[in-house]
């Protein structure tokens, strides 16, 4: 019998995964658009809304994770494998906070407040600062790429568990 993650943990996992992929794709799209257009303006705002939604879900997810212990990893895993899995998950959590917070910080630095869904105006994280904005955008970009590449490695590990080790690691999250 497979002991699964709790339903909220599973839902949050997949919602956050989808949100990150979509935000990443939108971010790359707007960044490749030249100049200033209605389309770009809209997509940047959708990107910001989506990113803030991810941030909120990640916060809920972390609270849930801290109050609900996940099922034990399979006994056949080597201690070092468990360590690698553990640290990867920790780093994923750090990046899931850092990347959207970095985007929010960048938006503030550029002098554009974040109005989530066009409804809720969030506070600026810093005053407008054009010089720092460039650096912050670069960090946001590097952070986003690291997050996505790490998530790809994480997904590859899950598939390896499923198809090669044939254990129930992936099933627990489905």
């Amino acid at each position, binding site marked *: 019998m497979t002991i699964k993650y709790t339903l909220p943990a599973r839902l949050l996992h997949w919602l956050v995964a989808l949100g990150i992929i979509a935000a990443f794709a939108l971010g790359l799209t707007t960044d490749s658009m030249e*100049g*200033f257009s*209605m389309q770009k*303006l*809209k997509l940047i*705002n959708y990107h910001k809304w989506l990113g803030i939604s991810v941030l909120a879900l990640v916060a809920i997810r972390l609270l849930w994770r801290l109050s609900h212990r996940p099922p034990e990893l399979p006994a056949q895993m080597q201690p070092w494998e468990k360590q690698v899995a553990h640290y990867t998950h920790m780093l994923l959590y750090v990046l899931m906070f850092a990347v959207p917070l970095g985007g929010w910080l960048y938006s503030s630095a*550029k*002098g*554009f*407040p*974040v*109005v989530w869904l*066009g*409804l809720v*105006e969030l506070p600026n994280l810093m005053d407008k600062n054009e010089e720092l904005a460039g650096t912050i955008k670069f960090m946001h970009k590097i952070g986003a790429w690291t997050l996505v590449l790490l998530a790809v490695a994480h997904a590859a590990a899950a598939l390896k568990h499923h198809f090669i080790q044939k254990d129930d690691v992936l099933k627990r999250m489905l």
Partner: protein
Amino acid sequence: MRRTALFLSLLAAGTLGQAQAAPADPAKSSVKFVFTQMNVPVEGQFKKFSADIAFDTAKPDTGKVNIAVDLAATDAGSSDANQAVQMKEWFNTSSYPKATFSANQFKPLGGGKFSATGQFSVKGKTANLTVPFTVKPDAKGSWYEGSFPLSRLAWKIGEGEWSDVGAVADAVQVKFKLYVAK
């Protein structure tokens, strides 16, 4: 030289029965605006303008104000937007480089508040505009300050797809602060 200039301007002021127009100090003065794009308030600034103000709070009806804003020097919040704002759909600065306001009708509104009514002209269209302001004297001069909403669509600022007020709201809040030394 200076005496003659002084004499001439006193003469001009005397004959016209108007207060003498003095330029606003560009270092202390500012004309800013806040526009709303997708419900996000974004601040911008007209970085180059001239303002000549003749205004005596005791005799408001003799006042005269001339303001000219150099639209090519508009900071619209980001480098992309600064370029876009020069385009045909927005200010069309190559055809209409300046926005001007000249007012000679003033009304006291009480409590140090006044209104100025005059011709506002931008992008080839001229129409009446009334602007409220306050006057605060200090030891060396006077501050003229005010804030008012301007309908961008009334002056065709943002045409075509940009006339969509869901993307960029119609009302643009203009905030000015002009300092004229004595």
